[in-house]
């Protein structure tokens, strides 16, 4: 059953890329017209510890000015029994070769299956050009178990957050396809376990965009024994006004 769901999601992603025809507004970059963006995606995958999982995520971004934005995200995942919520904000600095944005994010995760509460604080800088984007930042993660109470917890040493993405077409094109390598996802930050995968986006109507990802999340990347840990697919819609 899990294989069938995964196959359907993957097929839907591929078909959506094929039918896309219009232009794309880069993620969280103000397009000069619309001040609000709301998006949602469905995800599904398989994880070594939790087996199959699936869930829904929503995101809202408000462009206060062409330079400043704020927003928030939330997700619920079944299988992992994970609930997440975050608030974030950032400043975009246009330069000759694209944009550099400076972002901050505060995120709360509740891993109900394991009984862990987690807080993550991230600051990062992202350079986004026509074909390539690079992200560097720092993340501080604190967690504790709800079984043992608030007093028991551990704060990790700051984690380097990094990401690299490359698109096959200029980012202003109506559809695009790219590769990414990164040690984070929308709702988690890792140390040196490097996610990689395929991402795409496509505009289907004036205000509607489709997007998706196929994400391989190995364990042990820096141990040089990167092993199967998690594979997942996302398929989402974004609306702006």
């Amino acid at each position, binding site marked *: 059953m899990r294989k069938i769901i995964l196959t359907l999601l993957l097929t839907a992603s591929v078909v959506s890329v094929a039918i896309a025809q219009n232009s794309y507004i880069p993620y969280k970059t103000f397009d000069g017209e619309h001040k609000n963006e709301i998006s949602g995606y469905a995800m599904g995958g398989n994880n*070594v510890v939790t087996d199959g999982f699936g869930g829904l995520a929503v995101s809202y971004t408000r462009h206060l000015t062409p330079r400043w934005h704020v927003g928030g995200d939330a997700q619920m995942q079944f299988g992992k029994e994970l609930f997440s919520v975050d608030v974030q904000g950032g400043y975009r600095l246009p330069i000759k070769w694209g944009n550099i944005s400076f972002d901050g994010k505060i995120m709360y995760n509740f891993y109900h299956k394991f009984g862990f509460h987690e807080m993550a604080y991230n600051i990062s800088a992202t350079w986004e050009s026509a074909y390539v984007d690079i992200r560097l930042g720092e993340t501080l993660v604190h967690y504790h*178990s709800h*079984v043992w109470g608030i007093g028991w917890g551990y704060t990790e040493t700051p984690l*380097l957050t990094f990401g690299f993405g490359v698109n096959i077409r200029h980012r202003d094109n109506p559809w695009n396809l790219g590769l990414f390598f990164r040690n984070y996802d929308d709702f988690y930050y890792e140390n040196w376990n490097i996610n990689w995968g395929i991402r795409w986006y496509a505009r289907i109507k004036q205000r509607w965009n489709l997007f998706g990802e196929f994400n391989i999340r190995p364990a042990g990347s820096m141990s040089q024994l990167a092993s199967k840990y998690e594979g997942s697919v996302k398929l989402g819609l974004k609306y702006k006004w």
Partner: protein
Amino acid sequence: MTMKARHIYIAATLAAVAMLNTSCEKVSPQGVLMAGTAVEDRVEMSYKYYRENNMEQKFDYDLEDFTKDGYSFLVGADSHITTDLGRMNEMFQIGLDNDDLFFCHLGDIADTKPDYYINLQNCLSEAKVKYVEKYYTFDEETHEYYRKGAQIPLPKEYRDIQFPFFPVVGNHDLTHNGWALWSNIFGSSFYEFEVAVGVDDNGKLICDHFIFLDTASGTLGKLQVDLIEQGVLDGKNYYNYRYTFVFSHTNIFLPQHMQFASTFPREEAYFLLKQFDKWEASIVFCGHVHKWDEQVFNGVYFLTLDSMSERNSPEPGDYLVRVNIDKDGILDIEKVHMSYVAPKK
């Protein structure tokens, strides 16, 4: 994209591909994205070996007589043996001199190359000779060995005497498909055993519990998670457990920022922390990052050991840990000094 930019892009791609296909003895760059030795295969083989060789029984009854007055064991990590066996020999000699009951190793025992594993095997063989000389008597008539001090000494052939060295597997033991070499010597990377320390008022055997996990790949893998959830390592319900010690190559907590080492992914770290709580673990020993660290989380003591390798830690230092448990069951941890220094070339 301009022509110049396109050339740079192609050159960078070719360089990355070349890098991923290049390998040296210690590094396996392609393993950053995909592995050659799968944890599922290792655990399947290990569990089969563990059951068929009755590993948990093999050690327990040898030691029952020798722990009533307390005992100690020695732990080392990341020896990365190549051609210099100085530190490994020193670890064994320290343990034999102190009458430590057994030795545990936290993985990355040898860098993966057949020659290095032959060196490791020779080192273990020499240590076994010293061990047998110290703890066994040889009967000239029957040509059998008897453990000194045993209440009921059982005759043994030399090959049946187990040198008490209990390792977990590390990532450097496995790069370049080293599992064939490692498993040939040690058999299983996933096992547990008990050390009997007494009998309670109900006649139940009181034991200390030792659990060894295969975390070399930075994940337990699906099969190992399933086996743990099935309770394969939970021990036996007819034993009464006093202390539980867990051994893992990959560490849970990162001792310092910007360390180029993978630890467990989020869900798996939380799964393990919950599991340690279920096992009522006393101490979790980890290696991997070549950096000393100690943490207490929910009453579980986490010790991450520095590398004992003469290349990673060339200066003499406290690279080993000894756990002493006295006859009253009081547990004490001490760092043990190593003084071997590699000769200058």
